[in-house]
């Protein structure tokens, strides 16, 4: 009986957080905030490519509508690139090159996966392939910036304007190389 009452208490509390009951507002805010912050940690270049308020709004909407499916918060955002790609159909569809931004999101999620990879270190990790939309946008300057934002990343110059990129792990670095130029 007491256990039932305990479960009921937790049911009610969790429900209040999810529906945004004002009496638990700090928890609702944190639920959204912690997931939005996780996206901000992973998608550093996407944040830089979009205006700050646009990125903040998108991460909050994503956090609300795409609940976490893994205990590992570092891997939150597995559908963020898909979400960004879909913005091409939205009210700001023609203001941002969404397909290109989504490609960068794919790249940054691959970097995060290699950083937190669920693989044995000695195995080196599986190579993750990423197709780049609008490869002409992948300039040397942008690649350098990507490298600057992700300090464990090593970027090959062959990646400039490449259509097929690959992300893998080597020792204490995550490597970004060009798949279509025979780097793998």
């Amino acid at each position, binding site marked *: 009986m007491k256990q039932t009452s305990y479960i009921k208490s*937790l049911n009610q509390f969790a429900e209040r957080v999810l529906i945004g009951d004002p009496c638990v507002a700090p928890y609702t805010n944190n639920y959204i905030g912690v997931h939005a912050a996780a996206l901000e940690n992973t998608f550093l270049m996407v944040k830089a490519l979009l205006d700050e308020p646009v990125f903040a709004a998108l991460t909050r909407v994503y956090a609300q509508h795409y609940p976490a499916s893994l205990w590992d918060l570092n891997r939150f955002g597995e559908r963020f690139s898909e979400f960004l790609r879909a913005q091409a159909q939205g009210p700001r569809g023609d203001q941002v090159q969404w397909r290109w931004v989504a490609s960068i999101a794919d790249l940054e999620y691959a970097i995060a996966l290699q950083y937190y990879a669920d693989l044995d270190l000695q195995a080196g990790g599986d190579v993750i392939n990423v197709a780049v939309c609008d490869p002409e946008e992948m300039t040397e300057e942008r690649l350098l910036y990507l490298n600057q934002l992700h300090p464990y990343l090593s970027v090959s110059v062959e990646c400039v304007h490449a259509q097929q990129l690959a992300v893998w792990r080597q020792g204490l670095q995550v490597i970004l190389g060009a798949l279509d130029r025979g780097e793998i």
Partner: protein
Amino acid sequence: MTVRGCHGAGLGLRTPHLRDVIRDQPDVPWFEVHICNYLGGGLSHALFEQIQERYPLSFHGVNLNLAGVEPFDPDYLKRLKQRVDRYNPVMVSEHACFTSHQGHLFHDLLPVPFTEAAVLHLAARIRQVQDLLGRQIMIENLSRYFVYEESELTEGQFMAAVCSEADCGLLLDLNNAYVNQRNLGESVEDLLKELPLDRVGEIHLAGFAEQDGVLIDTHGSAICNEVWDIFEQFVQLRPNIPTLIERDNNLPDFSSLELERSKAQQILDQASQDQRAVL
């Protein structure tokens, strides 16, 4: 053989500082890591291996869902046990909270009602984890922004009962206690009178943010003077407790954290001197 322990004031080690710490090997007696960040096998784990070779570590978790009503996540528990067995950290700690419910992963430390049923439930789950890990763990008091009407106990009574029932240690977060005092009117002094201070194995010090008149435990600012005062008073009661500077957000450079750590160390040293003088 070198006996590794967590003594004095340590630091919470965060991802942006990993490289600097490996390279510079700062004179910090111990680090606490969010072990959830190191349960995979990627680069993160490779860096962790280098850290653990050089420093005593405390493993602090946020995903066990100790007070939850669903079965433990077997994958998480298995990985945690592997890491504990492999690296034998000096301390292992978690929170007196639930973090997931009915399939929703909140990634937040959600409070429970302070009832007898909750004591028995939480204690049973802590025992289950302790049995699996083959060691005692510590549980941490929460910062809270909600009071359950059905609570029958104070937080101090609740934590004391859980620690006794589970025979576990207590990680005392003094900032959380202060936040609760400010937000909920729950006296820190009363809390400390009710807690089993002999079970305190670690202290956390952190900073908070104020939003709409509510203090939020963000770990995103410097430790406030009031919390330093509480810490100074506490160490007169229990000196020599490993003390952690816990910073997660608005992360400053490492030297700024080191300044706060040095201040905590000075307070600990002074309390030890005072105690020796009395003896």
